[in-house]
């Protein structure tokens, strides 16, 4: 089945003219038609546009034109990245009719790399959540067991790749929103260093934490996609002006002498036994190939969640002030301006978004700023320093990605319990570090994820370790059973 190919496999076939972009696009669209009813990964599918774009690329290839790095590959974008002329909803009612007049920088870069946009994927509204259950439209399902969630917030992007509906996708990660769904769906997901990939045109949630990154079927694809999107951008003042290497050059299969730190706080109470076992087994594989592993301590790990759940809502409360019903999006009818603001925002935002706006507004409000927001920023310093110290001695840090495997939809009702999902992923956002999740086994039929965290701008080292692990893990590449009319998981 064409849709099952990795990006690198599909590129090789395109270059040898064994397959056309049109055929790959048709294969992806037909896969979407077959399984989307079960998976529900997409908010919008851009079928006609995709077929047209693919045919144009095929023509250019036949004419012998020079094409981009990923020319002909069909992909999907999380629906919080602006796409010119294609509705971008953030899975929120407040943006249900928003058609951006411009492309996000990543959308533009991927266009010039020659990719074909298949559609926009579902997320927790405004990327706030860990399950896609906060989407204003529907909950995406985990392709491995459709009773379960795909994780979140980039659950649609993760599920689309896991279900072979897209060859790769992009997500955004503020507290784990790429890595946790990658772990839940059994795909590779990377959050690059803060500033490595432009955020211009990414609908802002928490600006000091948000970062865009790829979901792919394997580590080589992750490096290929990162090559296409890692670039300085003058439209994003937080974009880092740091040269990006060729990330595939790190896939040399050698981890001899690499130093891996294994923080004991990530194997504490609350992390499921099967998850710990799978991650320790993965570590054994790396050690058997010459890596050196040592247990370390990142003593402020436990404070990551409270710090995050003060900083992220504070920044969100400010970023989301722009949704006032004036310039774009939903507007509620009212007699005066103040009521229009209030009704628009109350009817347009879902419960979790409102909860975080209120929490953030409170943490920033007069009399509480020092006690909550400033305190959180200070503890953020301590968390960052833990990593600075560890990286003086170690090349990468290895942990579980999420404390559990995917849980069943509708079973986590308490917001605070849901927040604990991010316990292993939040610290990398607070410290701005690159981190990747790679599948490291299964508990029953649900995938388990392993997280590798690297130094600032050293995506190369985590790709190197991930690639060696992937090549030697002994884990068979399987695909979820889907497309059988929904009976696969009954």
């Amino acid at each position, binding site marked *: 089945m064409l849709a099952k190919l990795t990006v690198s496999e599909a590129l090789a076939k395109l270059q040898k003219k064994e397959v056309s972009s049109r055929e790959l696009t048709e294969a992806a669209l037909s896969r979407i038609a077959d399984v989307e009813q079960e998976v529900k990964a997409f908010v919008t599918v851009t079928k006609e546009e995709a077929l047209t774009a693919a045919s144009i690329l095929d023509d250019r290839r036949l004419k012998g034109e020079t094409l981009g790095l990923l020319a002909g590959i069909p992909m999907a974008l999380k629906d919080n990245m602006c796409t010119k002329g294609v509705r971008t909803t953030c899975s929120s009612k407040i943006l249900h*009719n*928003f*058609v951006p*007049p*411009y492309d996000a920088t990543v959308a533009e870069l991927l266009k010039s790399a020659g990719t074909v946009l298949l559609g926009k994927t579902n997320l927790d509204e405004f990327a706030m959540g860990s399950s896609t259950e906060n989407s204003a439209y529907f909950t995406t399902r985990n392709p491995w067991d459709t009773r379960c969630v795909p994780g979140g917030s980039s659950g649609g992007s993760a599920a689309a790749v896991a279900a072979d509906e897209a060859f790769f996708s992009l997500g955004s990660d503020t507290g784990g929103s790429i890595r946790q769904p990658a772990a839940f769906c059994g795909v590779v997901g990377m959050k690059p260093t*803060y500033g490595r990939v432009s955020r211009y045109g990414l609908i802002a949630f928490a600006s*000091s934490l948000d970062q865009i990154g790829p979901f792919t079927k394997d580590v080589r694809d992750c490096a290929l996609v990162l090559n296409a999107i890692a670039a300085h951008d*003058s439209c994003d003042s*937080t974009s*880092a002006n740091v040269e990006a290497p060729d990330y595939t050059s790190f896939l040399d299969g050698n981890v001899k002498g690499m130093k891996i730190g294994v923080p004991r706080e990530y194997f504490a109470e609350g992390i499921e036994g099967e998850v710990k076992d799978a991650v320790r087994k993965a570590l054994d594989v790396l050690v058997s190939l010459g890596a050196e592993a040592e247990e370390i301590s990142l003593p402020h790990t*436990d*404070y990551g*969640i*409270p710090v995050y*759940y*003060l900083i992220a809502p504070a920044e969100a*409360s400010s970023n989301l*002030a722009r949704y*006032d*019903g*004036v*310039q*774009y*999006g939903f*507007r509620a009818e*009212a*007699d*005066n*301006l103040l*009521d*229009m*603001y*209030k*009704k628009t*925002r*109350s009817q347009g935002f879902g419960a979790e978004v*409102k*909860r975080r*706006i*209120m929490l953030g*507004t*409170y943490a920033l*409000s007069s009399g509480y700023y020092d006690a*909550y927001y*400033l*305190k*959180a*920023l*200070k*503890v*953020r*310093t*301590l968390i*960052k320093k833990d990593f600075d110290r560890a990286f003086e001695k170690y090349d990468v840090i290895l942990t579980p990605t999420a404390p559990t495997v995917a849980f069943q939809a509708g079973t986590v009702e308490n*917001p*605070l319990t849901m*927040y604990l999902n991010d316990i292993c992923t939040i610290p990398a956002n*607070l*410290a*701005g570090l690159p981190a990747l999740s790679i599948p490291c086994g299964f508990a029953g039929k649900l995938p388990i994820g392993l997280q590798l965290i690297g130094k600032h701008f050293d995506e190369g080292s985590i790709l190197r370790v991930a690639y060696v692990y992937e090549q030697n893990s002994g884990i068979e590449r399987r695909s979820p059973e889907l497309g059988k009319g929904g009976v696969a998981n009954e």
Partner: protein
Amino acid sequence: MKINREEVAHVARLARLEVDGVEMDAYTDQLNAILQYADKLNRLDTEKIPPTAHVLPINNVFRQDEARPCLPREEALANAPDDEEGMFRVPRVIE
């Protein structure tokens, strides 16, 4: 209690949100639970610790102040819920 019903109502007003009675009870409970959880930060002495608002050593980023192309007016207004004569139209502000 870290935050009472009146304070939640005040915060909702600041955030331009309308919250009805039932919602108010739920939000008050949930915000209290989250703030109580955040209390564990007070175990740490941060008296001499500087805050980190931004992880990279990037400060002000400047560019030349020169005119560049911008969106045509009709495109900028295309998403407006209501517009008139090239402007965003809103409910009456001044009586």
